């Protein structure tokens, strides 16, 4: 009750009552106390020698890593091309599977809110909750190492992400446009093609390039577990302490990510 009457009978407005202010003050106090306690615990279990030593080690690695071994680039063209393909094909595959899942999960298009929708939501949650590296490990065990395992890992990991964003877009469409198309006597599929699809197309395109952009980063590390792409060279170079090669690989990855960011920004601004 922020509006109170004082002794003189004038009405006074305060943001909070005294009780509320006290409560918030104690809340902050508690927060700070917990922070300080955690800080102590972490500090106690840290070997500070290594931390103080870190700048020297980092500097050492930096000097070893420069200059990058530029000639090594000849061996990177194929892996980076593989990486791009893993990301692109994985995203396309994910979208093909995500679109039906999204329509089944959206409250306004699902054929059955009680039976089908929970299954669709389960697919979304389960594919999203497992990291693509773990998917890659599983798939390598099943179908063997290589690019195909990488593509599938990226695809499965992306289904949930794409389907979730897409079904939220479907739920937010303007229902009267759908009504108008139904009122003309259009069939269920025609209502979808004319009433729903045009409304979600910008979201769909945005989601696709966004996920593609993310997948390029993710596919650069898939090689660490043997699922193809530039990560394989990265782990090889790290294991043999070939720092000049590592730095070159990092530069190449950085460059690929910048290019993908640029492309997705262009595409998104073109749609919206």
């Amino acid at each position, binding site marked *: 009750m922020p509006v109170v009457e004082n002794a003189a009978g004038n009405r006074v407005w305060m943001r909070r009552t005294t009780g509320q202010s006290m409560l918030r003050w104690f809340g902050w106090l508690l927060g700070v106390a917990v922070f300080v306690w955690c800080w102590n615990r972490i500090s106690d279990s840290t070997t500070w020698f290594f931390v103080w030593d870190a700048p020297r080690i980092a500097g050492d690695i930096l000097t070893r890593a420069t200059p990058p071994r530029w000639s090594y680039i000849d061996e990177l063209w194929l892996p980076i091309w593989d990486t791009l393909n893993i990301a692109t094909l994985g995203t396309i595959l994910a979208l093909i599977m995500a679109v039906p899942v999204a329509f089944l999960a959206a409250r306004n298009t699902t054929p059955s809110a009680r039976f089908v929708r929970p299954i669709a939501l389960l697919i979304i949650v389960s594919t999203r909750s497992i990291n693509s590296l773990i998917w890659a490990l599983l798939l390598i065990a099943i179908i063997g190492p290589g690019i195909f395992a990488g593509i599938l890992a990226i695809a499965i990991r992306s289904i949930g992400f794409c389907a979730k964003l897409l079904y939220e877009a479907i739920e937010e469409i303007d229902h009267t446009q759908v009504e108008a198309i139904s009122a003309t*006597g259009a069939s269920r599929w025609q209502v979808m093609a*004319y009433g729903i699809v045009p409304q979600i197309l910008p979201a769909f395109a945005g989601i696709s390039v966004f996920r593609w952009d993310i997948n390029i980063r993710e596919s650069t590390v898939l090689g660490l577990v043997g699922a193809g792409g530039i990560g394989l060279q990265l782990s090889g170079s790290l294991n043999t302490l070939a720092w000049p090669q590592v730095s070159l690989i990092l530069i190449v990855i950085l460059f690929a990510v910048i290019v993908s960011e640029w492309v997705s920004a262009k595409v998104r601004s073109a749609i919206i």
Partner: protein
Amino acid sequence: MLRLEKLVKTYRTGDQALKSVDMEVPKGQVLALIGPSGAGKSTLIRCINRLVEPSSGKVWLGDTELTHLGAGALRRERRRMGMIFQEYALVERLTVMENVLSGRLGYVGFWRSFARRFPQSDVDEAFRLLDRVGLLAMADKRADELSGGQRQRVGICRALIQNPALLLVDEPTASLDPKTSRQIMRLICELCAERGLAAIINIHDVALAQMFVSRVIGLRFGAIEFDGPPTALTPDVLTRIYGEEDWQATIQKVDDEDAPAEVVA
């Protein structure tokens, strides 16, 4: 032509939107449905083409009873009922032409409509209608580039290209300025007269309704409170429909506004 028998709609929340409505609309008659917000006007016209499922009662369109039809048969009957919406309900990201042609979806198969390969006769008719409402030059524009009045004209074309026997019109002028409102109402009434269409027009603006239609039905709490010619709308009747208010001004205003209306025409 259209006959409603004891039409009842009770929403799942328990709200009774329509309480046993009986009414008959002969061929070619344009009638206005007035009444306060929440009186069931929108529900009534949506129950006719079953965008809202009526709870009980019958709807006869010609010789066909609509409330018991299966999905396929309902779609075929919906082709005979064009609908015009308050917020136009155009598919914003499609072109004007695509929006008009979407009125033919009930006649065209999925793949043809998906590929936008409509029969030439439909395309000719679309051009004719766009020409009639003065939007021929806009055919290739996207719907969201148009002004409100232009969008409603496209909405009218979409309803008419169905070649319907009946127009269901839900608050056609509620989002338009007074001048455009009159133009749209005039256009709807003219087109109905040209084609011998019956129309049910939900409308808030009593004065505007009186200007254009030949019959007015007043709805209150889901029941018909008044049914008669627009001239019979006395302050007394309006009080029965809407509740106590000084109606003399509203009705007076109708007479005053008649003069500028002629100028607009």
